[in-house]
């Protein structure tokens, strides 16, 4: 258990001390939001208007409203972006996914794959390649 607040502020516990379940929330990209996810923070549009409050369970309709209002992400409980993204790519053909990753690794070989922007670009371009080629092979 964490000590009194004053102590914690002065002397933060090193290492992954806080691995409690309530911390396992995160900003999830619009494309990975699913009905049933629970908002961990309110969703505010750019003009400052609150669209949905904390604790609201998302529906298809909410997600389509986010699209129209230009909301690109939302903080949800119990799911991290990594998990949501992994669920998304798990639905793809594993062979095509492997081929896409090999191709993308070559294409991206001069970039720093640890950079957060590059990581996300790589992930999205891989999925995009699989979708394009899955379509191409069906037709």
């Amino acid at each position: 258990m964490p000590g009194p607040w004053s102590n914690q502020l002065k002397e933060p516990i090193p290492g992954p001390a806080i691995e409690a379940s309530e911390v396992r929330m995160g900003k999830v990209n619009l494309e990975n939001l699913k009905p049933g996810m629970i908002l961990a923070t309110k969703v505010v549009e750019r003009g400052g208007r609150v669209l949905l409050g904390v604790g609201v369970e998302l529906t298809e309709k909410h997600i389509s409203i986010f699209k129209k209002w230009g909301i690109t992400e939302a903080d949800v409980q119990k799911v991290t972006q990594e998990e949501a993204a992994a669920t998304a790519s798990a639905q793809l053909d594993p062979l095509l996914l492997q081929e896409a990753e090999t191709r993308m690794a070559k294409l991206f070989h001069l970039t720093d794959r640890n950079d957060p922007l590059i990581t996300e670009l790589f992930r999205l371009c891989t999925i995009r390649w699989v979708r394009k080629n899955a379509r191409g092979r069906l037709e």
Partner: protein
Amino acid sequence: MIPKSYIQIEDITDIPSLPEIFIRVNEVVNNPRSSLEDVGKVISEDTGLTARLLKIVNSAFYGFPSHIETISRAVTIVGTQQLRDLALATSVIRLFSGIPHDLLDMESFWRHSVACGITARILATFRRESNVERFFVAGILHDIGRLILCLQKSEEMRDILKQVRQGANTVRVVEFDVLGFDHTTVGGALIQAWKLPASLEEVVLCHHAPLQASRYPVEAAVIHVADIFSHAMQLGHSGECWVPPLEGKAWDRLGLPVSILSSTIDQIDRQYYDTVQMILPESHHG
């Protein structure tokens, strides 16, 4: 010491000139005394340009609710600077000829440039920049120095592009190794010779080193990132085979969350085909 690059660039002569019609449009837009009507009149003198501009402003790219039938309407609705920038984009694409197809595929080159322009425009819209057309035209022009190199240093370029295909490095690095300068310096010099705005010159010059842009850091950062997106999505081909390294601080400078990527990529895919059809000459539609 004079950098080697400057000596070399002086060798680069007889650059293509911008079409007379664009120079006149530019003059009338820059002249504080000219009216909207004056701008419309100059554009209307060129029927080809008029048709191209009307096609663009009536496309989904703009999504205006009603049809714009005349240039004078377009001038009022779209704006004079924006029309000037679009006129520049479509004029430049028609300017270069004589580059052997096996050295550089021009259609593919312009497709990459259009992709970069669209991406830059989308990123600028996320940032709520004014006149996003200047980002579009900067994207169209960013690699223009490579065309000059292909025209004037064609043998060296053949060797450079071959080394790049074999995985040596980015075109820019290999250009520098072989020639002592690269397409950004040549492009910057061309923009200056054409007397185009200093912002375009800096963006072309700094699109691989956006932190060196002192006057237009945001513009340079947008094009730097847009170029990387276009390569990652493999839309068109500028001679480059690899996604160029990202300058992370340039992305931070834009203040945009990584979560916009997904919708940005969707928007690029949606706009790419139509914009290519609108901007490239018929012969390039393939």
